[in-house]
């Protein structure tokens, strides 16, 4: 007989009746001080960001800096190569003809912004990732159909196998389950 080894809990999952309950529960989670929790629903819920206490993403600043870098790099490169390093008169125009440099400057600004937006988004939300504690739950698959969940990961400072379970039940969570490898 193999004795089953109880693995360490990676988190906890609770199901809620509907979007309204989920919104209310998210608010309670935030008030209680949980920080490493997430809400899962089949569709976006208005007001969820505020309920969860999510702050405005700093992505805009990352993209802005990338755009600034892209435009100045493009302009700088064209100026330096065309006017300093290898001065070349093209169709009788001045060496530094900013008009001719606009398309490349614009394009590199856009390119680096787009790349920064993609990479920055992935860096900020931690994707792609191969594993998440919710994958241990059989029930979780319903989140893309008709179920509403809150998951708390074990790395939350407030996470406690008993207290968190009680709290999730207290705020209306059903089918609370501990997420661990079986």
């Amino acid at each position, binding site marked *: 007989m193999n004795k089953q080894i109880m693995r360490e809990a990676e988190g906890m999952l609770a199901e809620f009746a509907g979007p309204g309950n989920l919104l209310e529960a998210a608010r309670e989670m935030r008030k209680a001080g949980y920080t490493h929790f997430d809400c899962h629903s089949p569709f976006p819920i208005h007001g969820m960001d505020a309920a969860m206490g999510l702050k405005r993403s700093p992505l805009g600043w990352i993209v802005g800096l990338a755009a600034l870098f892209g435009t100045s790099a493009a302009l700088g490169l064209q100026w330096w190569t065309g006017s300093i390093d290898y001065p070349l008169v093209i*169709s009788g125009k001045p060496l530094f003809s900013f*008009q*001719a440099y606009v398309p490349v400057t614009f394009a590199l600004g856009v390119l680096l912004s787009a790349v920064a937006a993609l990479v920055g988004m992935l860096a900020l939300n931690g994707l792609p990732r191969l594993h998440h504690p919710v994958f241990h739950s059989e029930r979780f698959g319903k989140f893309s159909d008709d179920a509403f969940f809150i998951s708390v990961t074990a790395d939350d400072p407030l996470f406690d196998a008993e207290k968190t379970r009680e709290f999730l039940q207290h705020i209306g969570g059903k089918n609370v389950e501990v997420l661990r490898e079986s």
Partner: protein
Amino acid sequence: MQYDQHTYRLTDTGNYGTVALIVGVVGLIGSAVGYITDPAQFFHSYLTAFFFWLSLGLGGLFFVMLHHLVGAKWSVVLRRLSENIMMTIPVMAMLFIPLLFGIKELFHWSHPELVATDHLLQSKEPYLNVTFFILRAVVYFVIWMLLAFLLNRYSLKQDQAHDNKLVRTLRVISAPGMILFALSITFAGFDWLMSLDAHWYSTIFGVYVFSGNLLGMLAFLTFSILSLQSKNVLTGVITPEHHHDLGKLLFAFTVFWAYMAFSQYFLIWYGNIPEETVWFLERWESSWKIISLLLVFGHFAVPFFVLFPAGAKRHRGVLMVISIWLLIMHWVDLHWLVMPSLHPHGIHFSWMDPVTMIGLGGVFVWLFRRRTAAKPLVPVNDPGLGDSIRFINH
């Protein structure tokens, strides 16, 4: 001003409309004095003012058709006001008639003796001749009025009863309407503005004119909404979320205008062919350079940086100031397109510039207010109205 929030109707509109009409008529009489004293200046000022106010109506027509075509939900609450702007086109068509008497003053291609000595104008004669010019103008106005009447008719029909089939009808009108609109505004821009300098040509000119028109219309729409809301009309229906989106559109079309303006300039600058560069040379060598620079900074840089932060797009005060600013810049842009043809040696402002603007503007504002007072301020039975009111940006 009194507003009934259940029917979305204005119950008492005050006398703004009448005041606007009186101001407009006085302005038009003043313009008539200008016609007697200096016809050439009058027609150029009148053309600038006419195109300014017509462009708002055309922008409205485009915005309404775009709304129907893409099945937009967020902008349902803006649709009726856009239609009210669009429905100024028929009266603008009548106010086009004075320009027919100014063809000789405005367009040198209309002088047979000049064409006789000019090879380029001879080649262009099959297109640039008075008969065909008038015929085309009639076609443009028929297209615009037909579209405006149809869109307006079915939109008002929708007010009477819930009928989801009308959504489709409006879309079916808009699809070919959009194609006709694109062609007609391009050629109208060629005819009325570009042919002022008949030697010069730029294929992007129509899109450039369109970009300014739409930006002007969006600025006027934003301005009207904020003025109505300052009197507690439509509050809670048009929300900061809609302000935010209007701000985004103003920002986007500021960039679009700059993109078109630069593209036009860039290719001509690069090609460096005298018959193309002359147009920019005229606007750069003399004191027109000041206006050219004013457009670069005022029509692009200022609104670009002002509207950049999300907070500014949701701030009523900022939106109000920038929409008035953009309307002024739209006029400066048209002035810069038209006037160098009459005053090639430098900036020239005439008293007829503001007087024709006020004259036609008074009529425009009167029409807009009259329709705003007569109809519900939003399409009350549009299936998307609820979604639009509850709309939230993500």
